[in-house]
């Protein structure tokens, strides 16, 4: 891995890993575009929203605000709640950057901390090389924005079987990120299993299932993460090894 000092190679590796994400994004943003069309947004508005938002749940939540013509303050609150998990991800990501990395790089890397792009970034060796993120962003963000615009314009022309198949691409990538560390670290394996179970239970049980999906993700992540940290604290050197 040491030979990959070359920024160009790292950028290209980022593009390669960003491609499956971009393909998954096309499918998801396509359906987001359909939702945008339903509230009367134009393809350009959908494109701009996705280009700058780069957030599935966050944008969908924003559309509910726009569709209801709610006050601007509601957009602030809804965006805070729907995207709060990115705060946790960015905290985690901050620990993977070179402490000397410039503010400009930090501002750029922060642009697209999404579930998926964050997922592949944490699968990289520490410290994260900015070129890797830029490579993945260059491929994935335009596909996200274009997919949204296509959804607005083209509506339901893709056969449902294709949409259905493409929709699991994102989850396939999540799986590919969480399984290798779970194989090496029994605590991670335990908590991945607990997370599946708790998430399933939370989607079925009364009260908690009535919360929004993104609120459930926040609550479960906080509770399970805290439990893991209390009962299985990680030694500093252990983190380094388990990360690779």
């Amino acid at each position: 891995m040491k030979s990959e000092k070359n920024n160009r190679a790292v950028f290209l590796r980022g593009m390669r890993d960003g491609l499956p994400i971009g393909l998954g994004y096309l499918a998801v943003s396509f359906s987001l575009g359909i939702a945008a069309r339903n509230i009367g947004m134009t393809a350009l508005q959908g494109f701009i929203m996705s280009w700058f938002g780069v957030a599935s749940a966050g944008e969908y939540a924003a559309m509910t605000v726009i569709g209801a013509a709610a006050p601007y303050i509601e957009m602030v609150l809804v965006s805070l709640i729907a995207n709060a998990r990115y705060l946790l991800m960015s905290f985690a990501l901050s620990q993977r950057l070179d402490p000397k990395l410039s503010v400009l790089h930090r501002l750029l890397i922060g642009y697209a901390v999404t579930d998926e792009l964050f997922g592949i970034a944490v699968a990289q060796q520490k410290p994260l090389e900015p070129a890797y993120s830029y490579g993945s962003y260059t491929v994935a963000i335009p596909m996200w924005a274009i997919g949204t615009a296509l959804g607005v314009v083209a509506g339901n022309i893709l056969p449902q079987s294709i949409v259905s198949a493409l929709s699991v691409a994102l989850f396939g990538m999540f799986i590919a990120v969480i399984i290798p560390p779970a194989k090496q670290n029994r605590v991670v394996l335990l908590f991945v299993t607990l997370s599946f179970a708790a998430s399933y239970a939370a989607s079925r049980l009364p009260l908690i299932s009535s919360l929004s999906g993104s609120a459930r993700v926040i609550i479960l992540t906080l509770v399970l993460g805290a439990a893991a940290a209390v009962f299985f604290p990680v030694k500093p050197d252990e983190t380094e090894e388990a990360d690779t």
Partner: protein
Amino acid sequence: MKHNVYIYILIMFAVIYAIRVLPLTLVRKQIKNSFLRSFLYYVPYITLAVMTFPAIIEATQSPIAGAAALVVGIVLAWCGAGLFPVALACCATVFILELFL
């Protein structure tokens, strides 16, 4: 009062970007606190796991196809397959199964 869609988008962007960029710019040191370190170490895996299931069985037309994609993905990733092959295999699993289900 009529609201402007572009102002809505601007507000959304400002909030999301602040959420994403503040931790990255303000937290420069390695965190020493053991609880916080451990918490941040586990968070990515837990949050991705929480978002994967049961969402994967709700994303497909047939829940069985989604469940099969989950199993196929886990097995392949466990055997060392990378991001793209795993994602592709999950899509193919759903596509093929839904031809029959």
